[in-house]
């Protein structure tokens, strides 16, 4: 039973991190097109922070 709880714990932690990753990707414009040279640094970080 203890090992089963380990399964539930691992599933919860890993799927929590996974859904957070998907959620952050959802709001990133550079997922579909690379940023042009010159506007990459700040914009990307800004988008990541906003997400």
């Amino acid at each position: 039973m203890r090992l089963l709880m380990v399964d539930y714990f691992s599933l919860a932690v890993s799927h929590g991190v996974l859904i957070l990753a998907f959620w952050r990707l959802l709001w990133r414009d550079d997922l579909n097109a690379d940023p042009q040279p010159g506007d990459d640094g700040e914009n990307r970080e800004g988008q990541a922070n906003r997400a």
Partner: protein
Amino acid sequence: MPIRSRATMAKIGKDKRTVLDLALAGFLAALLVMGLKRPFIWVLAFIYVDIVAPQKIGWGFMAALPASLLVFVAAFAGWLLFDGKKGTRFTFRQFLMVLLLAWCAYTTLGADFPEEAATKWAWVWKSLVFAIFLPLTLRTQLRLEATALIMVLAGGSIIVSAGIKTVLSGGGYGALQSYVGDNTGLYEGSTLSMVAISIIPLIVWLARHGTIFPPDWRVKSYALCLGFACLLVPVGTQTRTGLVCIAVLAVLSLRYVKQRFLLLGLMGAIGLMAIPFLPQSYVERMSTITDHQADESASTRIAVWKWTLDYVGDNPMGGGFDAYLGNSFKYKTRHVGESGSTSSVEYVDVVDEGRAYHSAYFEVLGEQGWPGLFIWMLLQGLGLIQLEFVQRRLRKSNDKRDRAHASLANALQVGHAVYLVGALFVGIAYQPFIYMLVALQIGLVLQVKRNAQPALPERPKRERRALKPVGAVEPT
């Protein structure tokens, strides 16, 4: 498909099972909904489904849900109908995979064991088709990172469970189970050991260069815990292949280290200090690694490999999937008996039949013959060479993005080398996770090529002249 034993199932209330099913289905549904805004998420969702196989974890309606098919159709349709195609190319390595796929189809048609071959073909073709398709979608820097991240987190899902169970119970050869009790995909002990070690460089890369989860103390802590869990998997599964993979990773990771002998000594010292904490059964099993004569498993491997070489001598075009079922051989194992102060060595004849290849190289050779092995080796070898070129070209660049690409190339190359060494002892020639790594390598090489091309200046918009009626006279 009943994955857990009835006794285990009886312990768990029906409510808990329903909650688990609902949670997994809800997670999958959330991904499908997110894909409506960003269709590439469907591609990532397929990677998740293929690695974790949530339909196997659930018991109720999840088990009946054709999750893999559903997500693959969404991924492909999403790319075909809604996704941009700018910058996509069909590379030589993708062509090699098409060739391998066609050759596998050909050998399946004339297989020695048609039924078994058809069963294996049913999952191998999907693995190859997705690996051919994936690079077409990897058009941006972020997509490469996202693919690497989802592969690591999805694989990490199984690894975290295996790692914690190793700490709590010590594991055991063939005894450590994560989520499900079947022996397919990443849920097989040796495969999980090899994959766990091969993704460690990717974990390090994501913790250093990630933008989805920018490096901070939380990301680094998670990466550290996941990396530690990866190292625990070979201990928990008690697979000798895993230990060999750790040794290969340790040596290869020294490449760009300045004080490599100091680090090597440090690794050795940590390894020695860890021995008292390792389960006794693990230490005993690992001690047989250099003595194949006393071990039936190792003796069988050598006998199967000899049989395969004889077999392709008569059938150079291979015998189709699972051709090993036709093998039968006799070999000797050495047993040391002790009575009092004397020990006697006894050689015992063992007869075996239908033993698996226990090596990806011999698996391909026996099943696909020399042409198949040539294509497969070329596919693997070209990857290592291309990644080497990327590293040499970009490692000393002043551009941060180039250095991140060089570092990713190194992580993928080391991971692939670990796989190629692990594959010497495990029959994982068509493991979907590895073909995803191959696709990621292709995507990286294409991305580096795209970045190397000078950006075309934007075409100045031409002003439209107003049309004048013919014969109109300009006012003076």
